[in-house]
């Protein structure tokens, strides 16, 4: 007889808060191992290729950092609203909006790079902020569910992008559904480790977010609104301001992710630019939700997962979808971990009792 006792925890021990993300990832990898075994691949060898070899090669490290840029920025776009108790599910749309606005400036404004690139980033940030501001305002003013509006606006953004890239912004010299190549002035130069300067922007965004949330009065308000908006209102904090702010800044970060991906990596905007980073940003923000630095670590981890995952799928002939399975498992275990954070589970194996109760039954 197994007796399972659930008791609500009165106090969540600190170590549990730190252990959750790590345990979550390990459990997801363990479950992923089952899928690998089923495919006839040794999980240890596969995971070694995925993580070890990627991290040991210069190419792997560079690719991971490049991949991490949009993931960290988009992760922050979800993290910041999450601090205020809101879900920004539309980072993908904000990212795409940023890519469109930044690319438009890059294609149509004639300035030297030192001026053009900042202008492109500002435009991209503003576009992402604008798109994110809509669900925030609807939520703050009329309590319209921001999960739904931000998600649906993503599809609006994708359609607008598709129209613009196939129409007004299309490369005049060809018939392909993409824009012209960005000029050298509009291309983000390499900064460190052979990675474009978007990495610097991402790290700066992490630093600003960390200090903003942890050290300023505004961050105090964001945290309070996120924890109990009724009490925050009673204390005179302005919920509308906070909701707008976290979404607008978050959207701006997503916009920066979009333009850094286009001007730093792809060189031109394609009609079907839909990288999915905005959605991956959700598990990243959940995994790193305790601080912006953790969001950065989670972003790096997911970048490693993607880069390593593709080399694993090449090396062992396993479907690349395995990486998506791992991603899904991480979310699943995160939710489970929340449960264990909230409740203490005592399992008792009582053999004698099982014998007697079994006999009576």
């Amino acid at each position, binding site marked *: 007889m197994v007796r399972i006792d659930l008791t609500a925890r009165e106090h969540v021990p600190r170590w549990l808060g730190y252990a959750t993300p790590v345990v979550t990832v390990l459990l997801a990898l363990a479950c992923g191992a089952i899928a690998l075994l089923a495919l006839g691949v040794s999980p240890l060898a596969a995971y070694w290729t995925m993580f070890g070899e990627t991290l040991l090669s210069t190419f792997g490290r560079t690719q991971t950092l490049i991949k991490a840029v949009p993931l960290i920025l988009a992760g922050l776009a979800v993290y910041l609203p999450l601090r205020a108790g809101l879900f920004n599910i539309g980072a993908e749309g904000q990212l795409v909006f940023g890519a469109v606005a930044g690319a438009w400036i890059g294609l149509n404004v004639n300035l030297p790079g030192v001026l053009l690139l900042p202008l492109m980033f500002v435009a991209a940030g503003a576009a992402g902020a604008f798109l994110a501001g809509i669900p925030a305002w609807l939520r703050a003013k009329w309590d319209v569910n921001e999960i739904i509006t931000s998600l649906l606006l993503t599809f609006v953004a994708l359609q607008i992008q598709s129209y613009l890239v196939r129409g007004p912004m299309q490369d005049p010299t060809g018939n392909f559904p993409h824009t012209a190549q960005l000029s050298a002035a509009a291309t983000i130069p390499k900064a460190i480790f052979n990675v474009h300067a978007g990495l610097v922007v991402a790290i700066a965004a992490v630093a600003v977010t960390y200090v903003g949330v942890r050290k300023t009065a505004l961050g105090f308000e964001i945290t309070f609104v996120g924890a109990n908006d009724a009490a925050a209102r009673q204390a*005179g904090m302005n919920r509308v301001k906070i909701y707008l702010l976290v979404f607008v800044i978050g959207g701006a970060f997503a916009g920066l992710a979009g333009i850094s991906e286009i001007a730093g990596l792809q060189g031109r905007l394609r009609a079907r630019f839909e990288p999915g980073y905005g959605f991956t940003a959700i598990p990243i923000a959940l995994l790193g939700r305790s601080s912006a630095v953790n969001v950065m670590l989670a972003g790096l981890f997911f970048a490693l997962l993607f880069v390593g995952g593709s080399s694993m799928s090449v090396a062992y002939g396993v479907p690349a979808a395995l990486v998506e399975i791992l991603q899904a498992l991480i979310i699943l275990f995160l939710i489970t971990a929340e449960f264990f954070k909230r409740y203490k589970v005592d399992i008792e194996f009582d053999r004698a009792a099982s014998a007697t109760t079994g006999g009576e039954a």
Partner: protein
Amino acid sequence: MLDATGIRAADDRGINALDSLDLTVREGEVVGIAGVSGNGQTELAEALAGIREMTGGDLRVNSTDLAGASPRAFVDAGISFVPEDRLQYGCAEELSVLHNAGMKAYREGRFADGPLLDYDELGSYAESLIEEFDIRGVSDVTDIDAGDLSGGNLQKLILARELDRDPDLLIANQPTRGVDVGAIEFIREAILEQREQGTGIVLISEDIDEITDLSDRILVLYEGEFVYETTPEAADRERLGIEMTGSRVDDEPADAPEAVAPPAGAGSDTAEPGDSAEATDSTTDVAAAGDGD
């Protein structure tokens, strides 16, 4: 200093809960509002604290017009609020004692460190409140969450935060409900001490003892209207009880026998069935309800 005329407010369902109330509170005066819960106490407290929109009337504190103002304006006007539901408006359970202690104070200049918020200073502020109000169970103000505290200690924390601002007006809605005996005594004393500092206090309670012990003036709220006004000296517990249930006391003739009754009622706090037998049926209910508190 608090001057409210004709204030009206609706409850959560949009039904009118306050019917043109007039209320004035002077400096250093405790106005006790007695009544059975659900007669507009919550709405009155929230309207006076600025978190429930008034549907009519005029509200001035120290001649600042607060009708339709934001909750922030109420805080800035020197109004403190001890809400009835600690976990709803009083604190954020999942945040630390530091956060909850600084819930209103964080804006003050002394906690500003350039563009940053001085968390160390907030921490020592929280510790000073804990010391001063004898709040137990807080080993570390950043580690212990408000939700970890017992009801009494949490209520003390909220009261400490609201009183430390040295408010001009304190709205306290059921400040001792669900609180242990030791904390009840402490909270009542703290309220009386604050009164000495010149704070005007609106004390809303279902507990007739609390109302008569702490108030300078007593109003009975029934179905959103003040139906009776008295002072603790002149107050007659039975009459208060009857008014709280809304049973109209026939003015002069009915008053006469009751004027005789008080000695008996006052002599024994617990109204015996024999005492109430003389009065109407509803009196019996009230006496019972009063004892329950």
